[in-house]
């Protein structure tokens, strides 16, 4: 039993389980949330489920939905691959499973953060609209020239706990990759070292010389 437990890649197992948990919770809780006004507009964003709410109407953008499905399947396959690999790290195919699984949570995380940064930068540069990644900001809406009304919009945004959980999952999967060397090395001692053959010649001894 001890030998079986010693063969498990615990980081991989934890990473696989955490990845699956991230997928499940991300269906219900966003990684990043933007609120405009008093819940006038809400953006719930995660790689797995992105939706928007405006005046009690919830909607998704079909292209973003397709990317969400890609991320969902990617993370599930990664989690399953990490689980299978972790339990059987010594199998011949395990290294492929590890290679398939360990990078995906990290890449999903990176694409998500880079995507958010790029979108907020585009809004800032093109529309002069400051959307905060974390914290709050007040923006003045551009109104037709000559209008004597100024419309200011308060918005607040922040990363939610599933985002931090995703970072943990990605970290565990990366750690599993490094721990793999230790797990792989652990199976080496099972190969028996051949005993040295007995020497056929007895060590030569010098006979004592007896003085005449």
């Amino acid at each position, binding site marked *: 039993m001890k030998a079986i437990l010693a063969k498990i890649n615990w980081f991989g197992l934890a990473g696989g389980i955490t990845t699956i948990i991230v997928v499940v919770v991300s269906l219900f809780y966003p990684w990043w949330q933007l609120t*405009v*006004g*008093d*819940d*006038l507009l809400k953006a719930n964003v995660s790689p797995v489920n992105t939706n928007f709410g*405006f*005046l*009690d*109407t*919830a*909607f*998704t*953008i*079909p*292209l973003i*939905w*397709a*990317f969400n*499905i*890609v991320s969902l*399947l*990617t993370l599930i*396959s990664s989690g399953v*691959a990490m689980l299978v690999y972790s339990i059987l790290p010594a199998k*011949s*195919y395990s290294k*492929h*499973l590890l290679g*398939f699984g360990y990078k995906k949570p990290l890449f999903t995380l990176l694409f998500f953060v880079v995507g958010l940064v790029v979108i907020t930068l585009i809004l800032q540069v093109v529309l002069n609209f400051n959307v905060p990644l974390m914290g709050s900001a007040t923006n003045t809406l551009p*109104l037709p020239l000559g209008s*004597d*009304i*100024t*419309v*200011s*919009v*308060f918005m607040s945004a922040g990363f939610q706990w599933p985002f931090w959980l995703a970072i943990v999952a990605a970290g565990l999967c990366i750690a599993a990759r490094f721990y793999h060397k230790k797990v792989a090395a652990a199976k080496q001692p099972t190969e028996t070292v051949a005993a040295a053959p007995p020497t056929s010649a007895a060590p030569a001894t010098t006979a004592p010389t007896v003085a005449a």
Partner: protein
Amino acid sequence: MDKVRLLLTVISIVIVVVPIVGTVLMYQNNLLGLFIPPEANEIIDTLSNSGGGSEGPMLEPVGEPQYDEASRTVTMTFQFKNTFPFDVSINSMSGDVECAAHGIHLGTITLDKPVSIDKGETKTITILGTWTEDAITHFQTAHAREEMVDANLVGFTVDVKGIQFKMNQRMEIPNPAYKG
């Protein structure tokens, strides 16, 4: 071993290609629909048909304003009919009042308390105007014979659902020094 590698590569490709190609095929006759969902069009239609848009809140005065000499506060009551296709919460109203003729600061106006009005509902809104001592003197000296005084509402800000509408308005205010 190579079969596993091949299988994993195929899975990686299928996972990326199938959802995107499938969605594009679903919207092949309406590619704009990939970016703008039908709900967004419905929201735009509803907003443009409601007469709401960026017009801001519409207020109808109710009854005569009440003036309390001790606190130099005038209480004005309005009816607000919510014509927007959504519930409205008026969190605050504020602004400075200036005499339109002489530019003298008369005081401030504020919303009595936040009001939530469901769509289609009409509710009463109470606005309080508090005049300064100088304003009372000004009413007595410069506008003693006027029942209503023209005033400018400077920096009038209405906070509706966290969106702030700021405007300068012209209004008529009851003269507290008018004796009839």
